[in-house]
């Protein structure tokens, strides 16, 4: 309104009104200018400064590169030492190269790449990088060629007669088949890991038989996600008051720690045990039913899932880093034993990614204390349940070889998950433009990338342990970045609110400012025209 008749004044007044004094005109101009000065120099910067969200920039390209698997071409050089005391060096080297050629030619290895070199000293300890040491003795060898894998170390003893040098060919083929047998499962597992990820392209696919892949699936799903530390909880549940004690400490020392010792190179383990009396089944399951002809109490497959009464039994995960693996020893009451699974008369089962359950059907009367001997069968079962839950591959027989292949699988899995998380993070930041990206995120992303590169190189030159270390750190870092709490908060402040807050204040203030500015400019032009 004011503005309107202001303009009117500007236009018409020229006719009737005597022109203003230049001083007043100047004063008015100065006033308007001053207001604008304040707005521009103080208001705007302050507004921008207070309402801007800090978004530190991320290395999106390299993140995406990882997500798309371009950053790292996964493959696993396996160094195999060949010790042939009876062969002379040049034969040995040629034999080694033949063997290497044969192995790399083998169609079941897409990701592995073998390097066989001869060891002149016949010491059993493999070199730092060597995953397998082949000891070939040709002298005093039995008729039939045979190869035995040592159960404690990564050493393959092969006996084969070598009459004339041509026999070396057969020896090589024989050895190649042996070694490929050893590493077949691993390569299958690795391929299974990466086959659905971007890392798979560039590798020509490996044909897996359906039953094999399903077996691998089961193994993967059952196994825990990799963690730097695991808690093992051994709990004894009984529906009554006895037994209320068990010699668990000795039992653990006897049966569990031998398995844990080698594993402790990959992860740390803590163990705790508890005894729980008066443990009742959850009402959700039918509970044991008496089977007359078999003359024992039976559980159905359906009940096994609900067997562990999550509501009542205190199996809360342990505090601290890492997941908890539960091992439940259930001692049925005197009148309800023996208690077996109806379908297969088994007494133990694994709950994937949670733990194992074992029903203790002691023939004897209910003792007050379970001795070591009572516990032996249960502990043996717990031991290989633990191996399965940790994802230790079932073959080859040699524990150390299984460990090393586990290392490779873990490293691969971590790299894959970390890079996919990176991809997710980059997509997120691109999609939600209003969320803040604090420096901590950028920092940990950089750390992740760095670690991933290292892990990749480590893999390429065969330092699998190091690769695992780096991959582990990368994983944790990227998780931290992705779940940064300060990022999510901003999302819930929509733009409408800002409008709703600004309009009432800025609208009425802006209009007079702008209009007056325009008016003054018009007048200025008019005067100019008059002058001209």
């Amino acid at each position: 309104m004011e503005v309107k008749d202001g303009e009117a004044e500007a236009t018409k007044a020229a006719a009737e009104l005597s022109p203003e004094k230049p001083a007043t005109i100047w004063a008015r101009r100065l006033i308007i200018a001053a207001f604008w000065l304040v707005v521009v120099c103080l208001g705007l910067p302050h507004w921008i400064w207070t309402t801007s969200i800090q978004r530190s920039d991320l290395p999106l390209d390299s993140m995406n590169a990882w997500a798309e698997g371009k950053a790292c071409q996964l493959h696993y050089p396996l160094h195999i030492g060949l010790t042939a005391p009876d062969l002379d060096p040049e034969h040995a080297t040629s034999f080694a190269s033949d063997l290497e050629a044969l192995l790399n030619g083998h169609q079941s290895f897409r990701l592995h790449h073998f390097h066989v070199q001869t060891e002149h000293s016949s010491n059993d300890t493999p070199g730092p990088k060597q995953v397998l040491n082949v000891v070939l003795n040709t002298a005093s060898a039995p008729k039939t060629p045979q190869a035995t894998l040592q159960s404690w170390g990564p050493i393959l003893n092969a006996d084969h007669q070598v009459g004339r040098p041509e026999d070396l060919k057969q020896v090589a083929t024989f050895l190649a088949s042996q070694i490929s047998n050893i590493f077949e499962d691993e390569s299958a597992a690795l391929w299974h890991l990466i086959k659905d990820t971007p890392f798979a392209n560039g590798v020509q696919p490996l044909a897996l038989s359906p039953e094999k892949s399903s077996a691998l699936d089961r193994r993967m799903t059952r196994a825990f996600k990799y963690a730097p530390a695991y808690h093992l909880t051994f709990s004894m549940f009984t529906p009554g008051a006895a037994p209320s004690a068990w010699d668990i400490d000795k039992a653990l020392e006897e049966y569990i720690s031998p398995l844990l010792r080698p594993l402790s190179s990959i992860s740390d383990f803590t163990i705790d045990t508890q005894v729980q009396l008066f443990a009742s089944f959850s009402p959700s399951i039918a509970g044991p039913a008496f089977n007359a002809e078999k003359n024992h109490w039976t559980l159905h497959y359906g009940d096994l899932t609900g067997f562990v009464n999550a509501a009542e039994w205190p199996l809360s995960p342990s505090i601290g880093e890492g997941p908890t693996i539960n091992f439940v020893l259930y001692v049925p009451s005197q009148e309800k034993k023996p208690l077996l699974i109806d379908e297969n008369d088994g007494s133990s089962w694994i709950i994937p990614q949670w733990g194992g359950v074992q029903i203790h059907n002691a023939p004897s009367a209910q003792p007050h204390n379970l001795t070591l001997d009572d516990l032996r069968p249960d502990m043996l079962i717990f031991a290989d349940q633990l191996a399965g839950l940790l994802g230790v591959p079932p073959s080859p027989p040699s524990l150390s070889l299984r460990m090393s292949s586990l290392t490779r699988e873990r490293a691969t899995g971590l790299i894959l998950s970390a890079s996919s998380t990176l991809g997710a993070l980059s997509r997120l930041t691109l999609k939600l433009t209003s969320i803040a990206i604090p420096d901590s995120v950028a920092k940990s992303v950089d750390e992740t990338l760095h670690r991933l590169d290292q892990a990749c190189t480590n893999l390429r030159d065969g330092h699998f342990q190091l690769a695992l270390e780096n991959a582990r750190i990368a994983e944790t870092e990227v998780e931290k970045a992705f779940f940064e709490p300060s990022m999510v908060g901003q999302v819930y402040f929509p733009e409408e609110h800002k409008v709703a807050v600004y309009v009432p204040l800025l609208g009425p203030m802006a209009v007079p400012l702008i209009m007056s500015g325009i008016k003054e400019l018009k007048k200025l032009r008019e005067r100019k025209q008059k002058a001209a």
Partner: protein
Amino acid sequence: MKLATLLALPASLAATVLASASDTYSEHLHLKPLPNGALYAGFNFTASTPLTAYESQHFRFFPRSLGQILQFTHTSELHLRFALGRWDEESWGNRPRNGRREGGTGVELWAWLEAQDQKEAEERWSGLVNSLSGLFCASLNFIDQTKTITPILSFAPEGTLDPEQANLHLMHGMLPHEVVCTENLTPLLKLLPCKGKAGVSSLLDGHKVFDASWQTMAIDVRPVCKGQECELEIDQTVDMVLDVERSMRPRDNPIPRPPPVEDVICDEAKGYNAHDTCYPKRREGEMEWGLSRIFGRPVQGSCPAGSRENAVDIVVEIPQERIVDAVPEDALDTVSTTDSQRSYRLKEGQELDLRLPHQILDQAQEHRQTLLHAHRQMTGYGQERGGMHIVITNPHPHSQRVVYLESLPWFLRPYMHTLAISGATIENMYYTPAIDRQKGTQLEILLEVPASSTVEMTYEFEKAILRYTEYPPDANRGFDIPPAIVRILPSNASSDDQGSYLRTTSLLLPLPTPDFSMPYNVIILTSTVIALGFGSIFNLLIRRFVLVEEAPKSPLAVMIQNLVKKVKGAKSDKKVEAAKDSSSASILKDTPNGEVRQRA
């Protein structure tokens, strides 16, 4: 813990051997009728484990879930309290267990933590409260730095700890607003070996416990060293005072309807007594009650955990001549003539019930005078100021030394210069002022309360105005002020160094609360006002002022004028005067600030 360290073989082997030897558990129920129809029931469960077994994480009777929390947070002694209602000193007399096992209304927690420095201690403390809140379904995690204090005189460790030890830190926090309920009892029962399925714990039923007039649950963990080998002891206590009449109502009909006319015992002595007029007579004598009627079921046999030789499960404290029929009879163990106590023991898998018929005793039972009364009230009204008024009464003929501990939230700002104590001498005083949004006030006063006298303590405070987001959803309810804790120091260095405790009730502090329904309206209003102010000032500054008729006419006005002219076209001869008049009129109209208008 690394595996290697875990399997330090011989040590832990020895440990387990020890453990199986000395993992003990015992439980206990104390019943005592109180004046006007109340019954005190005190449950107590004690389990212990050797420290070595505890460190190698082998749990038997000691609950694993709690033990791990303690280990993780390096808590060496823990005291947790859930309380509901208040103890009625006037009629119930002395507090059970000298008030050591009771807490202020809501939740109270204090613990001694091992830590190198204060910072680490605070981290561990927050870890402790968070994991405990998960374990007990209580919002303990709201005990943050603002609610945490470190008392100096009020608490002494029960276990064999050395409080002087540098790396032991005492932390204390209270949540008066927390409503203790069944979901807090269930986890407590889960910690027991027998899980409320056998033993005296089978009587603990949520409905009954939380219908009690006063009720407190306590968990105390402390290391106890006998000579060389130490063990960790957990002591779980559930004390309650039940209204016998109310809790004996049948479960299916809990509503206290007016009884049928014939059931009301009238006082015939009254003259006006008639068929329709009945002065209710107070029933004399002891009420009849029984375990199964009060708790809804009898005791489900004994809890066989731990060694059961010479274990006493239930003790009833009643006068000699009161009749008690136990079912089965042989449950009666001993009758002590001295302190009128009868003890009963349970058999495994055999129910026990106690029934006490209605009976008129010749001499009414005396109730012991309490050590001390303490009342705290908030005074004043209005949004800005208030006052606190504490009355401590010592009914005994000997003086008592008392520690008064007050832990106030930061938004209650006491004026210490107004602290006035009449009737007692301050021996010592520790005061930590509050820091807004960081720390609460901690006030600890060591008093000498003279014999049979009353001490009055008053101070005034100011109510802070909170930020918009700091108000809870029920801001208009007011903010709970945690109870004050009064510790009566043991006289002349007697055997126990604990003394006895009592707590005042919590208070409700009304703070100035905004109207939460209209923040946006407020924004609009304020910014509109600002904009208006700005607009007018701005216009004043840049407009040009002219006389009315100088101002250019709006087209509408011009049209109207023409119309008028047309109408009185006849009187066109007087145009001059008309003009003159109009001018003078205009002058008159404008004179108030004529000078402004003349300036053009």
